């Protein structure tokens, strides 16, 4: 019983031997993180008098650095969901979209507006609406942009996202969108307040993250997902063996759109704010960068990439102040040059090489092809 249960879990997470245990260990660590943080970096004084050990631990988790680092992890989880959703398009279907932020931002605005003063919807109804809106939005813009391919598609998606950015910034809808200020302080249900119940919000984010991970994994390993991958590899051939690739690309678009919208909604709830910045190309490029750093065409890659970028941003800003983006840019270039398939991709291919990386680096700096 014990064995078959753990096998089942292993199968759910990966379907392959040792790798499944690694995933399980990571998820277990994430699940225990608030308690560990409470124990190690929480404020001991935060535990109320007479509280039991476990209760005290949870109280300590809501304090000091324990709270702060849970916040960091929540943001990593949100970015991970967003990056995974992007990789369904880029890595698994071969669609380079520059408009992915459209779904992220719309998800944020949708939840903020619907639970806000004008609609006052109950939270879960609003969350359901976020999904419905994302499905409709991705269907409409998927159908429109998938009429073209390659760089044209990239441009079309960019234009659509820009359209939503302009709509969000426009003064005409200030009442609903807050125009260029965005929306702040909308009534997130008290039981989900990330300031009051950081640990609870952390688990909400973790659960959503795990669900999206499992759903994405299942999609990719389904007959449908295999056709997406075939489309990425050689779309013409996929058509010639009888697949109308349009539908498979559209399914990828919808899945990616819904997951991105959920990430956006979660981000809005965490920050209790949503701004037009969430709809910009910079947001899309974040996802692109996380995916590239971690490894295109893997799910773990974007998750790692999201974690790395979040941490890097935090530390670099602390050490270098306003100039941090310059350092960040250099680190990004180093990663791309030395790990051409991203961290996970390069590991899987076992194709890391200092020499090859160094040659590419010199070529980049001098503009000359390396000899040999």
């Amino acid at each position: 019983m014990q064995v078959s249960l753990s096998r089942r879990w292993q199968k759910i997470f990966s379907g392959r031997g040792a790798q499944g245990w690694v995933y399980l260990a990571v998820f277990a660590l994430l699940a225990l993180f608030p308690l560990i943080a409470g124990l190690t970096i929480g404020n001991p004084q935060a535990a109320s008098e007479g509280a039991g050990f476990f209760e005290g631990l949870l109280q300590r988790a809501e304090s000091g650095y324990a709270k702060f680092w849970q916040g960091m992890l929540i943001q990593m989880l949100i970015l991970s969901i967003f990056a995974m959703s992007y990789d369904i398009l880029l890595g698994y279907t071969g669609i380079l979209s520059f408009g992915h932020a459209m779904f992220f931002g719309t998800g944020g605005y949708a939840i903020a507006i619907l639970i806000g003063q004008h609609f006052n919807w109950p939270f879960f109804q609003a969350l359901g609406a976020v999904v419905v809106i994302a499905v409709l939005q991705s269907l409409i813009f998927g159908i429109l942009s998938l009429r073209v391919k390659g760089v044209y598609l990239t441009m079309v998606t960019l234009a659509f996202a820009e359209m939503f950015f302009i709509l969000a910034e426009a003064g005409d809808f200030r009442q609903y969108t807050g125009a260029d200020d965005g929306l702040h302080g909308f009534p997130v249900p008290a039981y989900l307040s990330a300031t009051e119940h950081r640990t609870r919000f952390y688990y909400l984010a973790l659960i959503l993250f795990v669900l999206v991970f499992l759903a994405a994994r299942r999609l990719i390993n389904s007959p449908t997902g295999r056709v997406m991958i075939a489309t990425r590899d050689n779309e013409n051939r996929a058509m010639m063996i009888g697949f109308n690739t349009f539908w498979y690309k559209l399914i990828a678009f919808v899945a990616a759109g819904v997951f991105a919208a959920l990430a956006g909604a979660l981000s809005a709830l965490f920050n209790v704010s949503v701004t037009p910045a969430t709809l910009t190309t910079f947001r899309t490029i974040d996802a692109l960068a996380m995916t590239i750093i971690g490894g295109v065409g893997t799910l773990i890659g974007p998750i790692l990439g999201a974690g790395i970028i979040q941490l890097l941003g935090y530390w670099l800003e602390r050490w270098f102040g306003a100039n941090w983006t310059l350092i960040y840019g250099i680190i990004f270039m180093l990663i791309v040059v030395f790990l051409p398939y991203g961290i996970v991709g390069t590991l899987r291919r076992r194709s890391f090489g200092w020499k090859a990386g160094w040659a590419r680096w010199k070529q980049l700096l001098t503009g000359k092809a390396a000899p040999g």
Partner: protein
Amino acid sequence: MENSYILETHNLRKSFGGLVAVADVSLRVKPRTLHSIIGPNGAGKTTFFNLLSGNLQPTSGRVIFKGLDITGIPAYRTAHLGIGRSFQITNVFPNLTVEENVRLAAQSLGHDNFKFWSHYLHYSHYQERAREILEQVGLADQARLPASLLPHGGKRKLELGILLAADPELMLLDEPTAGMAREEIPRLMEVIQQIRQQGDKTIMLVEHKMDLVMNVSDWITVMHQGRVLAEGAPAEIAANEVVQAAYLGDLYGDLSEGMA
């Protein structure tokens, strides 16, 4: 008497700008035969195949397959109607394994393509089919290799395997031996002969190796500059003086080179 031909084209034409690649080709293919199309490079053979398989839209003319007008319908639908196509220039899924290349082709004509909630290995009959095919074309040992790592001859076999997996009624083989090492060709011919012996398939073959064509064909159409120059049984074509002059003549160089 429509039905005595599996495929007919009526004045099929394709022009690229000013260049007429296929000029009013009318051709009829009897079911369960091997019908070869020969002609010098640039004669329009590949373009003609592209018009049949739906990879290109004809400028004018009709394509009738099993009594059905399929002119200009897209490639993903001709596959479902029973037309399979292999390519002169290898056209596989380079980053997928050899087995997955073939498995996908088997999956495509089933009814499980949109089952996005279950694992693809759950539908094991596609995998079994893929293994059978790999056995047949002689790639069973390379099943787990990414297709891009196959040697050239292996890719040609894979090209054929992808075609066979879908079990099409009409097979369009565009220079299946192109670039293959000479010692690998008999194996490929064996596969083609096997298919013929099953007796339920129609094969259209474009091929430059004349000895091979003369051997296996029931019927040969000679194309030249987009037009049909001659048609007939292999013996008639070999004896045809116009063909000799226009085509076989300048192919002899090619031929003797290959035989050396």
